């Protein structure tokens, strides 16, 4: 892939530590997710739990270009975006455990992660709304003359939805500072995108809205990194939105505990596992001699230890007090109380 190679070279020369950073970020997500999946199996995580395993390169490659002030709006499969945007693994884990120390105080769970302090503006259990909300944050940034950027992550499943159509058009006609990141993992639950979409090329949809679209290998973090850099810079400059299609794959079930019934072949899963984004970068780093294999193993150990610590933190955290259940339905609960809570 020529685009990826160009990128890669550029990234290395511009940011000598960039690959290492991206690698560690992906590891953090992977290890946290694996622990959360285990916790789900053990009954600590309730409700639905959609892991990000296999797609780490997308969140990491995009969020590498974001500041705390930039805003991310994500989906039901949002753990990776939250972690990449800077929400602590402890807070994500505690949220899935339903604890008061979770990023949403235990009110949200897996599909409702809020951490506006670090620009994680929320994840949604309904497919679509986050696309529109990112457009709106972009609107507010433009109105205020700020050079902040809003990013919407969403799946291929959202592409056929009216929210995609209306959101991309609005951002485009007003040149809003938004990056639309479609994680095309080929399926919405088990419905193939190739069945659900009359035209399965997502990036080319951008033309219909008059904004640029780019398709990239979403398992190659450096490729994502490069197109995201361009897209974020374009938005920050005030030149308007970009649609990125990151072709990727989730290697676990749609949600934890769901059987993998026949909608995809073992060969397909295996072929994508062979292109695991973390393994890809690892072999590049080791292959080019940039990092020694045992250094990487040490990072892995560290990531695993931190993920386990997050789980322990969650487990040890208190449940929300049922008496708080009526708080914050509206703004009559003071901002001070909000900070306390």
């Amino acid at each position, binding site marked *: 892939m020529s685009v990826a190679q160009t990128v890669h070279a550029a990234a290395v020369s511009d940011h000598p530590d960039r690959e290492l950073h991206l690698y560690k970020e992906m590891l953090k997500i992977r290890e946290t997710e694996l622990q959360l999946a285990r916790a789900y199996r053990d009954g600590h995580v*309730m*409700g*639905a739990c959609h892991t990000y395993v296999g797609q780490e390169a997308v969140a990491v490659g995009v969020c590498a270009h974001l500041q705390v002030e930039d805003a991310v709006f994500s989906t039901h499969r949002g753990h990776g975006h939250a972690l990449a945007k800077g929400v602590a693994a402890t807070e994500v884990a505690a949220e899935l455990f*339903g*604890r008061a120390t979770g990023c*949403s105080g*235990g*009110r*949200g*769970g*897996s*599909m*409702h992660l809020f951490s506006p302090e670090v620009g994680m503006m929320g994840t*949604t*259990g*309904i*497919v*679509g709304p986050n696309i529109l909300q990112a457009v709106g944050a972009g609107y507010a940034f433009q109105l205020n003359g700020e050079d902040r950027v809003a990013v919407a992550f969403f799946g291929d*499943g*959202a592409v*056929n*939805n*009216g929210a995609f159509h209306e959101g991309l058009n609005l951002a485009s006609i007003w040149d809003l500072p938004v990056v639309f990141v479609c994680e095309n993992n080929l399926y*919405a*639950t*088990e*419905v193939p995108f190739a*069945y*659900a*979409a009359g035209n399965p090329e997502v990036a080319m949809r951008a033309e219909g809205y008059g904004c640029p679209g780019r398709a990239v290998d979403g398992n190659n973090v450096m490729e994502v990194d490069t197109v995201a850099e361009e897209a974020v810079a374009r938005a920050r400059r005030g030149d308007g939105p970009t649609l990125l299609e990151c072709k990727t794959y989730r290697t676990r079930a749609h949600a934890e505990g769901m059987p993998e*019934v*026949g*909608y995809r072949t073992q060969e397909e899963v295996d072929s994508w596992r062979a292109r695991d984004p973390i393994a890809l970068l690892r072999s590049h780093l080791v292959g080019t001699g940039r990092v020694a294999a045992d250094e990487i193993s040490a990072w892995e150990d560290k990531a695993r230890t931190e993920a386990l610590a997050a789980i322990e933190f969650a487990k040890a955290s208190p*449940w*929300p*007090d*049922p008496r*708080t*259940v*009526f708080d914050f*339905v509206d703004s009559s609960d003071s901002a001070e109380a909000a900070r306390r809570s």
Partner: protein
Amino acid sequence: MSAASQTLTFTEAAREGLAEEMERDASVFVVGEGIGERGGNFNTTLGLFDRFGPSRIRDTPITERGFVGMCTGAAMAGARPVVDFMFLDFILDAFGELVNQVAKIQYMSSGRLRMPMVLRGCIGVGGSAATHHSGNYYPFFLHQPGFKVVVPSTPRDAKGLLKTAIRSDDPVLFLEHKLLLATRGEVPSEPYLEPLGRARVRRTGRHATVVAVGVMTPKALAAADSLAGSGHDIEVIDLVSIAPLDTATILESVAKTGRLLIADEDYQPCGVGAEISARVCTDGFDLLDAPVARLNGAYVPIPYSPSLEQAVVPSQDAVVQALRDLLAE
């Protein structure tokens, strides 16, 4: 299990009803996400894809507005769509189609077009499904004229009502509480239908009436049992039909008991209990020995954590307490 009946879960019974109607009438088709080969997130169509094929058991993209609008046109053209929302929460994206189109087209066309459409989906709080997968919403469809709405609580009603809903020329919401899906019960082996628009008296009593909506029915029955020990004789009505409301059955009961509690997991303001209370307070004012009482879910978005989720739904104990308070009035 008698010779003429079988024990089925709520979901199995409803699925049997759907399959029977699909056999009977080739114009019935189902749309939804994951309802094809997978058989539905809640097994609503398990095995039916193989029997009826993709044009009658139709997997859709994530386009709730789109496929509701599509089914509106299909109904206008003489087909009989069943929309399977999985979680009813997703219906909200199609609300404009429902209120402005589905509800009105029979009226606007003076009945020259009919609207045989079933809208089914899982409702209710439970299992930490969290705030986007726990809604009830049924009062919206009583407020707006043009809909019928049923919330069955037994396998028998599930099957019989779904069959009637599919045969109805009106849009019918068929709402399945997540916590009732595994409920087992007797279902006649012979074909049968259950009528829309009728409440069921599940337990007779003399001292007070509980009208329970959906998932509150088993809780109300258990509460009534537990109060029987202390000499209180409670009548329990399973509302079943939200639209139209079966006011007659409720008034008849209140005429006997003089006391009424409406138990509903859904929010109180402008809810079903408000309407029942208002009707009884008007048409049954002289029958009442005490103010009508309402027991509802907490008036907050549904939270995820079990400690909070439990705090928003009315428990069996809460029903007992509400009845004690009512009896003491």
